[in-house]
């Protein structure tokens, strides 16, 4: 098969297509709030392949999945699943597919076994075949020891695997997985991919899988790139990155230059489409036929050395979605947070412990954060990072150990102490019924800003976070990326010294994530201390120092480089943060 070919072109064998969409359009709502979730999509999934549906939040991935599972009717167009018209015969389609919705569709108050039994009944798996199939799936997913545990008590990764097992019970011909890897740790993600490929290899199963993780695109046989309801392209992952050959570089860090500042300057340069701190170098993608800015550091500074590297899917994605004349977002203007930029420790956790009943969520962890640092808490859902985070913010009492934030325990500190911290909650919690402006005004007032001072800060937020055009919109209807900007602005209204950011990039598309990190870097430059949690391993590279957590314990602490170094071995000559994480977890499990 040629490397590049348009899948929907005439000539390909119809029998090869297990899913086919022709001119599918789907709209939601009516009147002013009407949106077009999918707009004239033509797409085909081939037998025996893993097709990835890639796109940022709100691109229309879930709508497409539901249409394919015959759970929704298209407004226009035809959908054929395994040769069956999905509009006319939904049950016939559903008898032959496996479908795992977002959040896995498990009954949380039923045990693992009870969930399996239920889905076996619903899918008509004959009792004779059950025992064998159960054993096989439980072995494959590693859930065998937890059969009696309630599904609600499983970790994110285990839930994901149980959801997958339920969808696989009857060996469907087509497997539909809607965001199966959201909020799941790298180890579980890797295992999921292994299970999926095993099905494809052994059963000849076809898979359509949606994901917001761009690095997963490269694991697919074929990728459909969805953006704002339109199909931007569908091809093999390599075919997307091929046009970028010769435009991707790794820039070794000149000594004594701040990586963050360099990255910021590169990003602002008109020739550069993307600049990303990655380990010891900055990954640079330029616009086609543009000269590289080797003299960025000025005539006095050292010339920059760009080493060509192979393009990746993510590079292609960013360059596809960005436009060359786009003005880079303004960086928040902040005054220096404090005169002394020394190594003063502002957050200190010592043998921090948190129990919920018998369950120990955080097992005596210790770390320190210094002024002006970006400090990361990395780990999967359920690793204990959110619990740690909530204890640091004073939202949860500690069960044991000691902690101080700017010299206070926020749990007991006077309200005044809390005036120095900014907090951005998970899911960008804002008042959905209030407009952007009302939200900003409220948070300003809650932090004690009134009158002229309040107006100044609100203006600052509207300008620096590009919120002015949205000021009178209801917050609830904003896209996630805008909500994130607003939440970030709200956390900065009172010019805090320390910033707590809980999963600030979850569910946000890669471009918004880049903007977010650019802003965060600018804040750190200005001397603000930032504590951030994330489950995106590659984002660890933005941190000055970080801890990696699993099962309530700190597996490693250090700079990104130090942590990556630990995973260096012959197999991984240049380990990524994800490699490091997986190696750490494996070592931890081996020790246990």
């Amino acid at each position, binding site marked *: 098969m040629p490397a590049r070919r348009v899948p929907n072109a005439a000539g390909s064998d119809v029998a090869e297509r297990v899913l086919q969409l022709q001119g599918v359009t789907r709209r939601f709502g009516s009147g002013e709030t009407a949106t077009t979730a999918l707009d004239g999509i033509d797409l085909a999934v081939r037998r025996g392949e893993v097709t990835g549906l890639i796109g940022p939040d709100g691109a229309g991935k879930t709508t497409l999945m539901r249409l394919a599972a015959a*759970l929704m009717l298209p407004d226009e167009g035809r959908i054929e699943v395994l040769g069956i018209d999905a509009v006319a015969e939904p049950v016939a389609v559903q008898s032959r597919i496996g*479908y795992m*919705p977002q959040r896995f569709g498990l009954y949380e108050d039923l045990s693992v076994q009870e969930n399996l039994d*239920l889905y076996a*009944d619903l899918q008509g798996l004959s009792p004779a075949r059950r025992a064998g199939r159960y054993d096989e799936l439980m072995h494959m997913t590693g859930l065998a020891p937890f059969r009696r545990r309630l599904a609600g008590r499983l970790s994110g990764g285990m839930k994901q695997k149980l959801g997958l097992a339920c969808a696989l019970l009857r060996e469907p011909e087509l497997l539909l997985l809607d965001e199966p890897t959201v909020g799941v740790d790298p180890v579980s993600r890797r295992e999921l991919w292994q299970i999926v490929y095993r099905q494809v290899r052994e059963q000849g199963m076809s898979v359509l899988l949606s994901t917001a993780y761009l690095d997963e695109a490269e694991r697919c046989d074929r990728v459909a790139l969805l953006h704002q309801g339109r199909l931007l392209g569908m091809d093999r992952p390599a075919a997307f990155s091929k046009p970028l050959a010769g435009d991707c570089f790794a820039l070794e860090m000149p000594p004594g230059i701040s990586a963050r500042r360099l990255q910021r300057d590169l990003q602002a340069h008109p020739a550069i489409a993307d600049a990303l701190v990655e380990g010891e170098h900055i990954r640079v993608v330029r616009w086609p036929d543009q000269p590289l800015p080797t003299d960025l550091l000025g005539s006095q500074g050292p010339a920059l050395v760009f080493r060509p590297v192979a393009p990746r899917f993510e590079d292609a994605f960013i360059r596809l979605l960005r436009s060359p004349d786009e003005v880079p977002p303004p960086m928040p203007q902040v005054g220096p947070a404090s005169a002394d930029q020394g190594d003063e420790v502002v957050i200190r956790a010592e043998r921090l412990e948190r129990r919920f009943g018998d369950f120990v969520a955080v097992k005596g962890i210790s770390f320190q954060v210094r002024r002006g640092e970006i400090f990361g808490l990395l780990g999967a859902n359920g690793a204990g990072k959110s619990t740690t985070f909530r204890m640091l913010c004073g939202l949860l009492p500690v069960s044991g150990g000691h902690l101080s934030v700017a010299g206070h325990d926020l749990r007991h500190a006077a309200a005044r102490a809390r005036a120095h911290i900014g907090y951005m909650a998970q899911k960008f919690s804002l008042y959905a019924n209030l407009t952007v402006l009302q939200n900003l005004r409220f948070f300003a007032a809650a932090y004690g800003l009134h009158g002229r001072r309040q107006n100044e800060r609100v203006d600052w937020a509207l300008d620096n976070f590009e919120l002015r055009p949205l000021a009178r919109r209801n917050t609830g209807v904003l896209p996630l990326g805008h909500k994130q900007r607003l939440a970030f602005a709200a956390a900065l209204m009172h010019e805090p010294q320390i910033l707590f950011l809980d999963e600030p990039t979850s569910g946000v598309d890669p471009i918004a994530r880049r903007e977010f990190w650019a802003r965060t870097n600018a804040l750190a430059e200005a001397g603000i201390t930032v504590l951030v949690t994330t489950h995106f391993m590659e984002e660890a590279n933005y941190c000055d120092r970080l801890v990696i957590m699993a099962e309530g314990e700190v597996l490693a602490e250090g700079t990104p480089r130090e942590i990556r170094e630990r995973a260096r071995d012959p197999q991984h000559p240049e380990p990524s943060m994800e490699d490091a994480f997986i190696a750490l977890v494996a070592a931890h499990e081996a020790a246990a």
Partner: protein
Amino acid sequence: MSKAGQDSRRRLRGMVRKEWLQILRDPSSIAIAFVLPLVLLFLFGYGVSLDAKDIRLGLVVEHMDSRSRDLAGAFVRSRFFRPHYYHDIQSAERDLTERRLDGIVWLRHDFSRRLQQPGGAAIGVRVNGTDANQARITIGYIQGVWFGWLEKYARAQGRELKTPVRLDHRVWFNAAVSSRYFLVPGLIAIIMTLIGSLLTSMVIAREWERGTMEAMMATPLRIPEVLAGKLIPYFALGMFGMLFTVALALWLFDVPLRGSFVTLLGASALFMLVALAMGLLISIVAKNQFVAGQIAIIVTFLPAFILSGFIFDIGSMPAPIQVITHLVPARYFVAILQTLFLAGDIWPVILPNLGAMALMLLIFMAIIRRRAHKRIA
């Protein structure tokens, strides 16, 4: 057994088993299905009563002599009153104002003398009319004591009391005139509404909220199986609630069951289906628990309480409201319940009400059949 039939049965069995496990493990299901019915039963069985007893009666006797003592004694002996003696009307009236008394009977100092005189004696009676219902009942009891005393007085004088009309009344079906006898059976309708409509609609909404409905819909499950999978467990739960209430009514609260148990069972089964149909309809409209709960309370629970004849007499409501009550299924069931428990199998009452419920069920089912589909939006 065909393969398709076997699969279908298996799917249904799986659904029903899952639902049972969830009911038993979910605290809010337990709250609605078990705690609230029990609370209601005990409140209505023990706490709530429309009958007046222990009426705090002020007996103002300004001059105590044999006759006034005799009349006052008649009040003291009545089982309805808890009397207090006063010597002057002022202090009694003050206590009435301050709600320490429910009523006053006032015998003036010339009571005995005036009894003999042509004009007769006036007995002053004051009741607190704020609670009109209680006031009327109190007056009724005072009248009863007064009349009994008049007869006795006349006999003591050696003559018959002359009353042109002598009323002889009988209260059928509830000779003890206890409100518990009609409140407790009516509760069956309330409890079944709670389980059938409130719980069912919230449980289905929860499946939408948690995304399990989506996973279920993507299996070969068919719509009738989805509906039956929900109907069967909650039907069983509702019938269990009914049996439990009946058992308590009969053995704890001593309410008689004069009709046949089979009729009760049949009528309850029909009403349970109607309540479930309402729950399903609500869950078609409301896909989150919060909205489902609110609609269920406003559309099913409150009407079952107020507009069903459970406490308030429908015949005395204004005509437009009477029309609305015809849309409340509980109205028909309460009528059947009160008749079955206290009067017996009176088919002319039971049949039309059963018919009305059956008609409602058919209409609801037709709407559900049209509106329910395996689509998400």
